[in-house]
């Protein structure tokens, strides 16, 4: 612990976390609009149509996770390397440029929404490609900002300590940034378009982001449980081998039906069936550590961060593992592709794998900022974690019911036509699934309120202990 004095880089991390949590709120808000529109299609019709609400929902998700990821790196970087981040001034400027760009893009999304079918629309309004709708000028801006970020990370590690966690992060971040380039061009050939589009989406979400999470998760384990660094780092390499080993060619499970050669059936099926294996490995590892540390009198130094890390282990396993495997094999994916199945899987997987760990990192920052030796869970914190986790799980279950109905009625019974589609959408089970999803979504939003409140106040509400009195007084 570096005492209550923070590195400048950590101050910057807090700025990133702040924007992230605001965008998280925006994500939930637009998700709520979209969920209502599934039940009441006239809600905000012609003002904020489903396409716009949904685009803002998923873009806010991606952008806030990236903000939180960059924030977490700026938080742990000086701590791990042992020195202040090189080029911190540049990093601060980049933060403001990025935030201004994000604000402009959001305003254009909200008030211009769509454009004529010309190249200028692609450059200035929207690219119209799910998840990476950001117009071309913003793409280029993002690349520039990310280059600054990469420079900071590399220069700092070169100068400071090279820990295993940092080495993995360095390699992973360059892949993560490089992959974004695969989504930055235009082609008339929609099959080729989607082929490269998946390079960005899949290789982020199921490869580079997973490895990022493994690295940051290792850091959190060291910080909260005082886990042995050597053990954590060795496991990190094993995780990298298993995740990249299954994840990179697991890309094949998106190449079953988009005009790609048939051999992707096999590659996609088996490699993606292996994707849960690292998650089982992770699960056994956490179980082992927990079992070994139990009774050693080792105290958890940051209960909320550790609780969110636990949510991440289970959420990742259930969302990515169980819900992924339910519809990943080509024989069944033929009927589930393009139904609510991916929606059900996506909600739990994104939450479990990424949202939970990013919140965990934020709690670490809260603790660091207040300079507390130990951070305990407050009541609001418990409400936040319970409402959000149970809410997302319930959302996923209701979407699964809807998805099953849709697959059965639209794909199984009505041959995937428009008529079949609308018959399925009107089915009682489908509509009820959507209703429960909305209810669960509201619970998540209430949980979000608790979360924001808790992040702002939990440091002040700690039971004051001997020896911590002065620090707590200083923070208040």
């Amino acid at each position, binding site marked *: 612990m570096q005492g209550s004095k923070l590195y400048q880089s950590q101050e910057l991390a807090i700025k990133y976390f702040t924007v992230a949590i605001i965008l998280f709120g925006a994500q939930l808000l637009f998700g709520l609009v979209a969920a209502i529109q599934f039940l009441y299609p006239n809600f905000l019709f012609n003002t904020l149509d*489903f396409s716009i609400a949904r685009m803002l929902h998923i873009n806010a998700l991606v952008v806030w996770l990236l903000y939180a990821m960059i924030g977490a790196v700026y938080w742990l970087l000086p701590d791990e390397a042992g020195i202040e981040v090189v080029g911190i001034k540049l990093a601060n400027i980049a933060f403001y440029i990025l935030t201004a760009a994000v604000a402009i893009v959001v305003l254009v999304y909200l008030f211009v929404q769509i454009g004529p*079918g010309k190249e200028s629309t692609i450059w200035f309004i929207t690219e119209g490609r799910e998840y990476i709708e950001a117009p071309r000028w913003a793409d280029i801006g993002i690349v520039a900002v990310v280059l600054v970020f990469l420079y900071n990370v590399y220069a700092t590690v070169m100068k400071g300590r090279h820990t295993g966690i940092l080495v993995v992060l360095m390699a992973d971040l360059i892949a993560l940034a490089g992959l974004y380039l695969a989504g930055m061009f235009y082609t008339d050939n929609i099959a080729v378009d989607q082929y490269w589009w998946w390079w960005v989406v899949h290789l982020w979400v199921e490869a580079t982001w997973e490895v990022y999470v493994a690295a940051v998760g290792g850091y959190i384990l060291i910080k909260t449980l005082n886990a042995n660094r050597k053990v954590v780092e060795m496991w990190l390499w094993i995780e990298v081998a298993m995740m990249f080993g299954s994840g990179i060619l697991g890309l094949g499970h998106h190449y079953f039906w988009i005009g*790609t050669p048939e051999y992707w059936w096999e590659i996609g099926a088996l490699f993606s069936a292996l994707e849960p294996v690292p998650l089982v490995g992770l699960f056994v590892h956490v179980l082992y550590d927990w079992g070994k540390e139990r009774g050693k009198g080792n105290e958890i130094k940051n209960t909320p961060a550790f609780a969110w890390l636990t949510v991440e282990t289970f959420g990742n396993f259930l969302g990515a593992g169980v819900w992924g495997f339910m519809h990943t094999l080509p024989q069944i994916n033929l009927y589930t592709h393009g139904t*609510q199945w991916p929606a059900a899987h996506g909600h739990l997987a994104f939450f479990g794998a990424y949202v939970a760990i990013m919140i965990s990192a934020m709690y670490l920052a809260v603790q660091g900022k207040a300079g507390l030796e130990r951070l305990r869970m407050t009541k609001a914190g418990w409400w936040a974690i319970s409402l959000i986790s149970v809410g997302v799980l319930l959302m996923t279950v209701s979407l699964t019911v809807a998805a099953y109905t849709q697959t059965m009625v639209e794909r199984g019974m009505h041959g*995937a036509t428009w008529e079949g589609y609308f018959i399925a959408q009107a089915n009682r089970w489908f509509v009820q699934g959507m209703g429960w999803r909305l209810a669960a979504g509201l619970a998540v939003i209430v949980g979000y309120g608790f979360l924001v409140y808790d992040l702002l106040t939990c440091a002040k509400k700690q039971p004051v202990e001997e020896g911590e009195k002065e620090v707590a007084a200083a923070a208040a």
Partner: protein
Amino acid sequence: MEEKVSVWTSNRFWRRSATWVTGVASVLLIFLTFDSMAQMKMGSAKDIEKKIDRRIPSPVVINYTIDYKLDPYRGHEIPIIGGEMRRPEGGIKSAYEKKEKFFGRDDYSEKEARELIHKGKLTIQAKNCMDCHTLLGNGAYYAPDLTKAWLDPTWETLAPAYNGKEYAIAAFLQDPPKMAMHERKMPNLGITKEEAKAVVAYLKFMSAIDTNGFPRNFGKIKGAVDARK
């Protein structure tokens, strides 16, 4: 420390393994990508003259009739362009012969057809279609899949009133609420007449892409999967 150290606990061993696995998986992916790109290159009008099948055919397919039929040789449904013929190896394939009028013409040159679908694709992106519909099964799930939209039975029923289904679809795109078929209706996105024509061309072209049999049993309204048993 003094006793022998197992390779299994060696950080170096796992680091090398991770590097190897990542490297070889990436290299394999790159090789597979080169091969896939070659196979997914858009075909040309020459291929169609020579009756060579391409996964993504030339846009001049808008001059031809398009159908979607089960090919026992491939084991799934394939697009049938310009009528069907027997494969020498068994099963059926496209004959590239039967033409049909598309907005009153069936002689779009390769250049014209490419320009048309270029505008169509730009419009599809500019209007954010993918955030309600799915294309080739990817996108949002608020509106029907457009992969084989051109072949959807809905348009067959509307076609006579509009003098052909391309006109029906184009009319729909220019003012969707007017022709709304369900409570969940498509908003008016300000699609112009030219843009509508281009989008219809794109939809027709997309229905000719070989998607390995997705969507299965498309268009068989009554008892799709079970009907074939």
